[in-house]
């Protein structure tokens, strides 16, 4: 005790001595950035002479787009070599014939160790469409594991579905419902290694999922428990507007993801690794470039549950590592949003990917926690930005491919793109994030010059093609789905002002409580509503995510991009913006949240609960 006391005093003395300097230094970081003294990764720029190892590659290997701390903690990750490890391709989750544990039940099997609190609603509500238990079954075990994110860092403890980060990719088909038994095998809180809450709720982001399987923030369950989730994989409208056709094929989804949604702790649990892709296929988006829309992709000949060649999910994540321990660092005491100075793709810092000179489909996902990306395809040799085609926004294929030279991706958004490497055999290209962001509030509005951004990953284009390209050239302007009409009169028009008052997030001037006890408003099942979102929170931007049903943008203050004329589940609410969104709430009932998907804001109660209730029902509160 004596010795530790002494140490405390000594460190205290040092802390006292440095205190003002620390505060001063933090205030000065932005000035330094402005003056060009700090690089994007929070590294001092070359002229200031960091270690030779770090500085020699700073210009093209730089990490963050901000001051590297984003939080005022001033942490700069240790140097890592970029482009020395190959991009990991996540395995695809395999079905099981028999589930571990008790036989599944429609009612929650509390006595058997299940954390679910409400019965599966689909089987009672639509007995001719769904059969219990579904023939297709999966299970996943959320658990701790150690992974390498860079050869220059020590092994990192993560929490992953099946002990993997990113989690195994899930392949699903429309019309093929499934049950997934989700086991919480996480260690107790006492072994969380610094952050993370081991009670969890898994959200299937963007899916048309009954409330009890949606991963509602307060439906969390504890270590030792399991939770059966029923994913109907049914087209929206199957039980309502499009009952005769078993749903509206124009509302088919493609790229979804699943992630933890535990109220108040989502940012920590997602940062720790509880994220994975969920891709849904149908007769048009088949995963096979010789059928349907002929999007790039050559599936495994004998197994649907296997990665698809040339159809590659890319999960972006920015992270900070403690410079002393080399361990993943989470800023626990940050209200604004967390920026990392290291960029991971599929769990590796700045990987390379060997591609063939042909077309690829990439499913780009910003898994957060807080950063906005603007991704360009850069040919660094000539410092030119190459065009590519965007084919989807969030989970939805666009009506047609759109030729772009960049995509903006807010947290939780997905953007599917087609890149044609045909003319770049032998070349090296990069995905470069050029969106400037220096704190968690949102981007500055500047796009940094080409070549000065974050080189997130490298493409090494080979010279030979294994499978000759049979995909449709997006330049021929093929047609995908048709946007459903938005002419129906809304039953209710509601407006939501996003504000910040005394550091607390408010929607329409009201605080949201973290126990999810009361819905703010309720929607009548199978009705149309129009929601207006307004951002009155000053210098903040918010990627607003509404669960269960997608929207179409009727109007917004800022010019609408061609790529926003679509169905979406995340609206990027920019400064002082107002937007009008069209919704149709169908098929299922129950509680859902809508929230900011800057997960740090979300964890600080920038979220509310709303419910869908059977007709006749629901309120008409225009300013809930």
């Amino acid at each position, binding site marked *: 005790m004596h010795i530790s006391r002494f140490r405390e005093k000594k460190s205290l003395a040092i802390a006292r001595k440095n205190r003002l300097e620390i505060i001063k230094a933090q205030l000065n970081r932005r000035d330094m950035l402005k003056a060009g003294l700090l690089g994007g990764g929070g590294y001092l720029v070359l002229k200031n002479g960091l270690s030779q190892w770090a500085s020699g590659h700073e210009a093209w290997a730089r990490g963050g787009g901000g001051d590297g701390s984003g939080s005022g903690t001033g942490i700069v990750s240790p140097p890592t070599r970029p482009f020395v490890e190959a991009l990991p391709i996540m395995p695809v989750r395999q079905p099981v014939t028999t589930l571990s544990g008790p036989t599944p039940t429609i009612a929650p099997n509390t006595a058997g160790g299940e954390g679910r609190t409400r019965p599966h609603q689909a089987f009672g509500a639509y007995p001719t469409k769904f059969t219990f238990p579904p023939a297709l079954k999966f299970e996943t075990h959320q658990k701790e594991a150690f992974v390498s994110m860079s050869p220059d860092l020590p092994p990192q403890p993560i929490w992953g579905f099946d002990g993997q980060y990113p989690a195994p990719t899930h392949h699903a088909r429309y019309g093929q419902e499934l049950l997934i038994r989700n086991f919480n095998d996480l260690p107790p809180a006492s072994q969380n290694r610094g952050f993370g809450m081991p009670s969890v709720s898994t959200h299937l982001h963007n899916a048309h999922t009954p409330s009890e399987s949606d991963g509602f923030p307060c439906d969390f369950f504890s270590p030792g428990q399991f939770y059966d989730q029923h994913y109907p994989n049914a087209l929206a409208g199957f039980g309502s507007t499009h009952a005769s056709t078993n749903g509206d094929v124009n509302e088919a989804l493609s790229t979804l993801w699943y992630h933890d949604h535990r109220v108040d702790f989502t940012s920590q649990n997602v940062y720790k690794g509880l994220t994975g892709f969920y891709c849904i296929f149908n007769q048009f988006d088949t995963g096979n470039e010789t059928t349907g829309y002929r999007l790039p992709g050559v599936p495994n000949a004998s197994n649907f549950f296997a990665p698809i060649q040339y159809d590659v999910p890319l999960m972006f994540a920015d992270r900070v590592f403690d410079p002393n321990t080399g361990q993943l660092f989470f800023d626990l005491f940050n209200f604004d949003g967390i920026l990392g100075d290291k960029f991971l793709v599929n769990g590796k810092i700045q990987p390379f990917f060997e591609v063939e000179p042909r077309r690829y489909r990439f499913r780009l996902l910003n898994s957060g926690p807080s950063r906005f990306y603007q991704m360009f395809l850069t040919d660094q040799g000539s410092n030119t930005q190459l065009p590519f085609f965007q084919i989807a926004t969030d989970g939805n294929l666009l009506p047609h491919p759109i030729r772009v030279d960049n995509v903006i991706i807010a947290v939780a958004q997905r953007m599917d793109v087609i890149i044609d490497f045909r003319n770049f055999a032998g070349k090296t290209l990069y995905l470069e994030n050029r969106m400037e962001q220096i704190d968690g509030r949102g981007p500055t509005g500047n796009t940094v010059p080409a070549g000065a951004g974050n080189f997130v990953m490298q493409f090494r284009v080979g010279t030979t093609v294994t499978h000759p390209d049979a995909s449709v050239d997006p330049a021929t302007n093929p047609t995908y789905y048709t946007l459903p009409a938005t002419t129906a009169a809304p039953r209710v028009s509601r407006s939501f002002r996003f504000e910040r008052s005394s550091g607390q*997030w408010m929607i329409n001037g009201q605080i949201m409580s973290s126990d999810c006890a009361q819905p703010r408003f309720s929607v009548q099942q199978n009705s149309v509503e129009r929601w207006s979102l307004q951002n009155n929170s000053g*210098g903040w931007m918010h990627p607003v995510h509404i669960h269960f049903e997608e929207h179409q943008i009727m109007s917004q203050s800022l010019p609408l991009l061609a790529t926003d004329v679509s169905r979406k589940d995340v609206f990027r609410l920019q400064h002082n913006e107002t937007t009008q969104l069209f919704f149709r709430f169908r098929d299922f009932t129950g509680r859902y949240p809508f929230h900011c998907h800057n997960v740090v804001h979300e964890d600080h109660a920038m979220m509310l609960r709303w419910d869908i209730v059977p007709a006749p029902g629901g309120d008409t509160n225009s300013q809930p």
Partner: protein
Amino acid sequence: MANDTPPPPPNKRWAKISPRETIRRRFFPDVRLTTHEGKKVRFYEDLIENRCVMINFMYARCQGICSPVTANLRRAQQLLADRVGRDMFMYSFTLKPEEDSPAALKAYVEERKLGPGWTFLTGRPDDLELIRQRLGFTDPDPARDADRTNHTGMVRYGNEGLSLWAAFPGMQTPEAIAKSMLWVAWPQNAGHTRKG
């Protein structure tokens, strides 16, 4: 240039510091403070270490967010009943130590009839400022941050022994506040060690 192979990194030896210790060093300066009862305490060793806590910032003459937040926390304290002061502790740090003497804070406590287990703290201005900065009770806009009349109503809560930390808006329902505290009051018998 981009195809150059970088030299290998130096043979880095990573410090063996537990996550909990990293958190302590980064966020919990062990500065000396004075309670509203005039008792001298250290921030980490006496207030935070191995404890389940709620933390907010306020000042006694605040005309803004403090009064409703204090009233709300008082209701949450009543819901948590005798656990506050036993295995849960509430701390309110002054934003204006130059005017909030221990006596002024004591008067604040007595005026509002706040129960035991809720401690108000003052001290040297730069010590309180250090805690405020470290715990992130700041605004990224420097002008807003400097304006004490518009300070944050957010409340940190957590369990130091378990490295569980989160926050809630001070104006959320007392029921939700009490529930949040129960989330982090995980059994501590398997608590990990700070050193090593």
